[in-house]
């Protein structure tokens, strides 16, 4: 941390003590969420999400694949994330570091564990041929909280995606001239809560992210249940704080779900 960072941290803490955040938000208020879908025509689905000044473009590519050996009755779902070097001066091109690997895996699990996509409906022939759904997140501007921004972008891209239809002919998948939609069973919403001193704040921006003690990312489903979570950072939570975080994630999540839902494609 530079001296400037220290001063900013001090300032942020001062404000929190007076129940204020550095960008004027309430503690439990996420930044504005702007979603645009269908911007990449070569993808089956795509979405750009602006969470404040954090910006992510997600694209969905769907293609036939071999199933995983022990999961022959399910389609494949893989979600990745990359912070583009144009997103921030500190990002260097190259293979992903531990931060980006964690990011991608947390976003992936958030969607996977809610069973958002009914993968059992994406089987062409059991144990032989299934449909694979790849969702790639490209972060184009960084202002903190990539977990939620990527999760919303991936979710919106999936919701707005079409689903090509294949039929097996002589064991080979043949693309038919019709389109369906991805079978959706619930809409996951990820909410990240930051802990600074003893204050819990939703959707930390880059300044807050830098000086927070710990964070927790909780994904809830349409039924208001908790489905996946991940603690991060060098600090720790009390039991009571964790219960509070769950309540926050469920209530804030239900509001954000309404925004995401608007982008759901119908047949």
């Amino acid at each position, binding site marked *: 941390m530079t001296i400037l960072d220290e001063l900013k941290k001090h300032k942020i803490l001062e404000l929190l003590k007076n129940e204020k955040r550095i960008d004027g938000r309430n503690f439990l208020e996420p930044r504005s969420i702007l979603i645009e879908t269908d911007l990449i025509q070569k993808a089956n689905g795509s979405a750009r999400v602006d969470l404040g000044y954090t910006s992510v473009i997600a694209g969905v590519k769907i293609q036939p694949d071999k199933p995983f050996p022990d999961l022959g009755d399910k389609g494949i779902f893989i979600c990745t994330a990359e912070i583009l070097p144009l997103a921030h001066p500190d990002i260097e091109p190259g293979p992903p570091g531990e931060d980006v690997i964690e990011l991608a895996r947390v976003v992936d699990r958030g969607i996977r564990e809610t069973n958002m996509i009914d993968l059992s409906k994406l089987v062409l022939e059991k144990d032989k041929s299934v449909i694979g759904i790849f969702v790639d997140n490209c972060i184009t501007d960084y202002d903190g909280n990539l977990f939620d921004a990527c999760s919303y972008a991936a979710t919106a891209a999936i919701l707005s995606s079409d689903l090509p239809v294949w039929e097996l002919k002589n064991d080979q998948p043949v693309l038919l001239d019709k389109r369906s939609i991805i079978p959706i069973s619930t809409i996951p919403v990820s909410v990240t809560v930051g802990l600074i001193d003893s204050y819990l704040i939703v959707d930390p921006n880059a300044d807050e992210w830098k000086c927070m003690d710990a964070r927790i990312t909780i994904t809830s489903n349409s039924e208001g*249940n908790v489905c996946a979570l991940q603690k991060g950072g060098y600090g*720790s939570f009390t039991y009571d704080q964790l219960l509070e975080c769950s309540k926050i994630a469920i209530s804030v999540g239900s509001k954000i779900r309404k925004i995401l839902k608007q982008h759901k494609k119908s047949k």
Partner: protein
Amino acid sequence: MGGAKTDIILLNESDIRCDGRKIDELRKIIIKAGVLQNANGSSYIEFGNNKILVGVFGPRDVHPKHLANTNTGILRCRYHMSPFSVDERKNPAPSRREIEISKVIKEALEPSVILKKFPRTVVDIFIEVLQADGGSRCAALNAASVALADAGIPMRDLVSACAAGKIANSIVLDVNNEEDQFGQADMPVGYMPNLEKITLIQLDGILTHNEYATCIDVAIQGCKTIYQIQKKALIDKFFQGDIK
């Protein structure tokens, strides 16, 4: 969580689990401290069928130097699985899963370690999973905390770790491999028993808010039991001759 279909009865009518345990019962745990010659601190844990070796080096100079921090020491952690540790032989190159777990364990230990005392240095934690079973990250975390203490690193508390989960609609302590694959939820928790703080928590699977609260609570109880085993391992090492 797999949530896959299975013929295994995860919980029978007498609330006995597939491996014979009660719902609030831990698997067998053995911890030894000081098992390696060359490491500054070390430990070995058997946790169910997990067998894990941990070696700690440091505080020592940081290489490459630009990673050093003039204000504080830093912690590094490598969680690695031996090729023969799992059913299908594992490629020895670190997987994305291993890299993520390394980070999660590092961040679970950081709150317990007083690094400010050793600016510009690093403490390296090397975790080798010789045999993997359900809950290997909790097992590794328990062993790593003991190895840090064995190395004489100044600490605020030990970190004890244990999962709780949901199987057959019941909340149970210490999820095993079958329960992880076929159950409904798995929640590993890392806990500092004296400071009463949670340093690691993850969840895969679906829980209501109340189940979530219960899970954390159950896991914390497990951690408290494990804490006694960790302490005993350290006492056995350091006062072996004296107390017996």
